[in-house]
């Protein structure tokens, strides 16, 4: 598209069908301990694929 660049993103609607395994790290456990950002977390299933 001439005026729109769409970044490569995970299809969230699609992820709802297969997601929810819960293997990912608990949000707060990683580095901050004071906020609940989950954007920087990786999906364990996606990591394996």
């Amino acid at each position: 598209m001439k005026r729109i660049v769409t970044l490569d993103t995970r299809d969230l609607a699609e992820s709802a069908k297969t997601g929810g395994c819960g293997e990912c790290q608990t949000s707060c456990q990683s580095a901050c301990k004071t906020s609940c950002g989950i954007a920087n977390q990786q999906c364990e299933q996606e990591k394996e694929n």
Partner: protein
Amino acid sequence: MIHEYKLNGYNIALDVYSGSVHAVDPLAYDVIGLFEAEPPDEIVRQMLLKYRDDPSIDEQEIRDCISDVALLKTSGKLFAPDPYAGAELPPRKRFVKALCLHVAHACNLNCEYCFASQGRYQGERALMPYEVGVQAIDFLIANSGPHKTLDVDFFGGEPLMNWDVVKRLAAYARGREAESRKRFRFTLTTNGLLVDDDVIEFCNREMYNVVMSLDGRKEVHDRLRRDYADQGSYDRIVPKFQRFAKSRHERGYYVRGTFTHENTDFLQDILHIADLGFTQISMEPMIGSPADPHALTEADLPTLYAQYEQLAQEMLKREKEGRGFTFYHYMIDLAHGPCLVKRLTGCGSGTEYFAVTPQGDLFPCHQFASDPSMKAGDIWNGVTNHELTERFARCNIYAREECQDCWAKLYCSGGCAANAYHATGDITGVYDYGCKLFRKRIECALMIKAAQAQKS
């Protein structure tokens, strides 16, 4: 829901429910903004008027752009609907998968801003006995259901004040991996004073992540991170952290700082940490009562926003120069990030994640561990306060009225329950100040992604 914003020369359109991020030119930015509200002919009229001095934009260009936006809508990448609007989230049985082990309610620093009251959590100084830790590991395995990966954070106070127990507990958990068919992932948070060769060697072998507390410039760090002899700690910890980080090959650690009202120019602290050679950096706003003199204020917000924007610009610049670094809150894995279920259901405190005190009591997370009304049970009898844990289980983005219209909710999953509780008295409230900073950070993070996409 669409969130459009302009930052650092980029025009960005985020489609909230699909998670799609679009870097667009000014015309497309305007067309997306009008698309759902106006018919095509009206959009054309308004755009012809707005861009009348731009010879490259004629009616056909505008109609082509409208067609592209319509195509993205059809493909679910713009104006995607809320998947669970007005409906109950699908029921999901949740198992415990992470513990924050408070191996030491004691600290060898006496930081004024410590949420844990100098590591004691408003109680008596205490170290977790090995037997309590073993029971906690057993509790975790027994209550983890089908989860394969279990997280254990060795936390405090200062966990290195109980180092021998940390090592023995890690060995105990590893020893149970094969028969329980679980895999442990350990993390450790330390102020650095007791880091030595033994700590470094053991952590490099066993710890998935190490969080090293450093607030930045010496004068900033030493202002609040002082020991009981009232001496600053910067000079003692920085060389140790540098050696530690280098030995981890610049992976599996964060240097984590806290900024307060006294250093709203926290970008200088982040850059100082980067200039010390660290590449994995986290810097958190202090969270405390508005009465606390260190607490950030509403008047600080414009400065903080500007600092976050300048940080993003500086990171792009340094990346280009081959000396980039990672800032925890700007890490967004758009292509392989969390699934929608994770984004809707929050951090897992009080359901999948518990803090364990040295006495073996369970709390929904480390930030509740000083509040007896938040006790969920203990590691011998398990969760006994089911009313409490049910409240936490219902704590998702749809439980918070304030989140309904917020474009960032699938990046914060409703925010921190503890911050909400301390700000409003309710775990399903919102800590509005934190939300404002969070939204700014996500805008910056997405801008960085747009800039990197354009470069590639």
